[in-house]
């Protein structure tokens, strides 16, 4: 059993120690908002916050997470998170939507660190989050819009 705090709730997790966090979240805890895209940290669809930092859940094993705090798309609930979600809805960013949990969690982490990011800051923070529908124009606009909403 590994102790894991997810979205403010403590869990004793039974998955094998080598299980990537992504599959603990999805298969054991039933939190399916975090998506599988590549399995090797090259697409960003599985982005969650581990102790507040954006992390690729598909490669970090459960054994590396003892006593750490995980926040997923289902649990993000700060003022920044609400602003990001509102901006995402206003600008209708999503198309197929599959990568958007990762995009949104990544955007929240960025705005927590830097409430007024430039285009370049946004590129740097989210360049590892692939979107096959290429909603990038709106992702960038929505991050700026969220920054306005926070200000």
């Amino acid at each position, binding site marked *: 059993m590994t102790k894991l705090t997810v979205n403010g709730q403590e869990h004793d997790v039974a*998955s*094998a120690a*080598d*299980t*990537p966090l992504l*599959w603990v979240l*999805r*298969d*054991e805890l*039933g939190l*399916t*908002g*975090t*998506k*599988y*895209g*590549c*399995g*090797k940290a*090259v*697409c960003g*669809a599985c982005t969650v916050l581990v102790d507040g930092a954006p992390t690729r859940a598909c490669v970090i094993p459960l054994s590396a997470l003892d006593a750490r705090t995980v926040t*997923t*798309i*289902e649990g993000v609930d700060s003022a920044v998170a609400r602003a990001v*979600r509102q901006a*995402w*809805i206003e600008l*209708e*960013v*999503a*198309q*197929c*939507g*599959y*990568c*958007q*949990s990762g995009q*949104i969690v990544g955007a929240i982490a960025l705005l927590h660190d830097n409430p007024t990011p430039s285009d370049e800051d*946004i*590129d740097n923070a*989210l*360049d*590892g*989050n*692939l*979107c*096959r*529908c*290429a*909603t*990038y*124009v*709106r*992702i*960038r606009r929505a991050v700026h819009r969220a920054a306005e909403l926070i200000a």
Partner: protein
Amino acid sequence: MSITRLTRREFLRHGLTASGGLLLGVRLRPARAASDAAGIPSFAPDAFVRIGTDDLITVIVKHIEFGQGTFTGLPTLVAEELGCAWSQVRAEGAPADPSRYANLNWGGSQGTGGSSSMNNAYIQMRRAGATARALLIAAAARAWQVKPGDITLSEGLVRHAASARSARFGELAALASQEPVPKNVTLKDPAEFVFIGHDLPRLDIAAKADGSAVYTQDLRLPGMLTALVAHPPRFGARVASVDDGPVRALEGVEAVVELPSGVAVVARDFWTAKKARDALLVKWDESDAFRQGTEDILADFRARAARPGLVARRDGDASTALADAAQVLEADYEFPFLAHATMEPMNCVARHDGDACELWYGVQGQSLDLGNLSRALGLPAEKLTLNMLYAGGSFGRRSNASSDYVVEAARIAAALPGTPVKLVWTREDDMRAGAWRPLTLHRLRAALDADGGINAWQHRIVGQSILAGLPKPPPADKVDHTCVEGASTLPYAIPNLSVESHQPSLPIPVLWWRSVGHTHTAFATECFLDELAHAAGRDPLELRRALLVDDPRRLGVLELAAEKAGWGKPLAAGRGRGIAVHHAFKTWVAEVAEVTMLEDGDYRVDRVVVAVDCGLVVNPGIVRAQMEGGVGYALSALRGEAVTLVDGRVQEDNFDTYPLLRLSQMPRIEVHLVASREPPTGVGEPGVPPLAPAVANAIFDACGARERRLPLRRAARA
């Protein structure tokens, strides 16, 4: 918003008992009284609209939602005619039943593709809304003993002004369900539209911003197991033997199932199944395996291009005109295999109950899947239930000629009767499986006359036929239009024109990929025309204008894009501008790209101006989104994408070797919509074809390099 996950019978029962409402078909059969267990009357399930006593309007959408906006666009049509408030409207995926939910552009076949959803359903869905409206009016008129003509509907209320009476839709649903369905309904005058043509919010957007939207990957059924499959390392290889002893002993592994397509490991969860699948010892029989590489295939294609092919179009006599010409230009263009690389890799949930099978997944090609499943399982189509879920992208992948992963899931489920099984393909499984955009070679020759006119154009295309992979393929000596579309329909006035097709057979599964043949024909034709313009000393825009006769909508987008982009305005050194125009799936799109050359032949696309004529614009925001996405999707392929084979083995199987476009590479995009009263046409695909030629032409303008082999990662300066 919900996507139904119920069987047809459950769906009916649910729809009626939960809402006690009105199920309405638009086939305008005489109303058939139907009732569920609770005896609530309704119309038989030829149904597109359900009005619940809770006032919710559920629109049953026959086309899948994978980002292109059908779950908003089709309900908009119903809501417009019905007179409800947009906040009342929900969308629900239709069951697989071609008798009720056929694509009207495809005869009796059900499925989504060819950017046809809005085009085929435009009148059908409006009639569904108008019919529901007529029934609500009839019910109110009877209840209130007033004339139907004095009743109005708007914002979800039925009103009779003179008597100051009103009712919510839900209050009238049960009464309305007893009214006879009118044979004819009057549709609104477009001048009265309040929803069509306006930016209604997408119905799927909130669920896609909080992680609650359910994709196949997310579906959890009681007792469900997860399956992964070991597939052969080369096309045409088969299982020789399998040693599954060590794997069967692993905790959490429930079954190992040998399949025609490989060996499945079924386990309690993904990670257990993944480890077990990777540990499986399979010996492959590769005696019939395909061992060629990309370069072998290309060499063969080049040799074929030297010979005449099947005739796709012949005007005048191009061969003689070329032989007699003063100046002949010739160019080969080469296009790689491309993966759809949807963000959600292929997957499918299936439960086989012995004499029936139920499946849950992103169902795009209902008729294809029903046929393939029926043959594979030996069950009639009536025993198959397909539940449509959101799909994390498709771009053609899920409209599935062989139903590869769907059949695979069903076969695994058949080995474990009663147990729901989720088949998951990893990214690597998905990319190695084929079903790619075919590798294609184009050879073009053209004759220029002394005045800079084009007197002849000969175009040979070599590539696998996609239609040859269908369950009932057309004869091999017939031109597959998906190989030549966009080339055989060349719009330019050239007196001697020949388009030919070679369709070699290879054991590599190929499939339609967002805009299909246009992905390569638009590049070859619009780049070659640009080459001819420069050879003739003519402006590429001016040459197109001169060659377009009686083609006002194509000229319309061409002029609009050129004007908005500032065609002809000088650019700084190292920058360039290119233009392309193309017609695909009934929609015209022109794009102007501006590029800046960087170090070592790399380049940046700074700005793309798009002009689109898709007839009546139902939802401007969604049309813009599809153009933006189409530009990004096409640019991604142009800049980096290629699946290659070496000795029959796939070399690229994840995003580290198959690079997709990133945020920092996305250009500024300006979309201009042509105002039109023509029927609406598709927008999912047509934004794709003009982008790559516009960019390649801009690179030539910037640095004089003509790159004719894709992907175009770097441009060698001339």
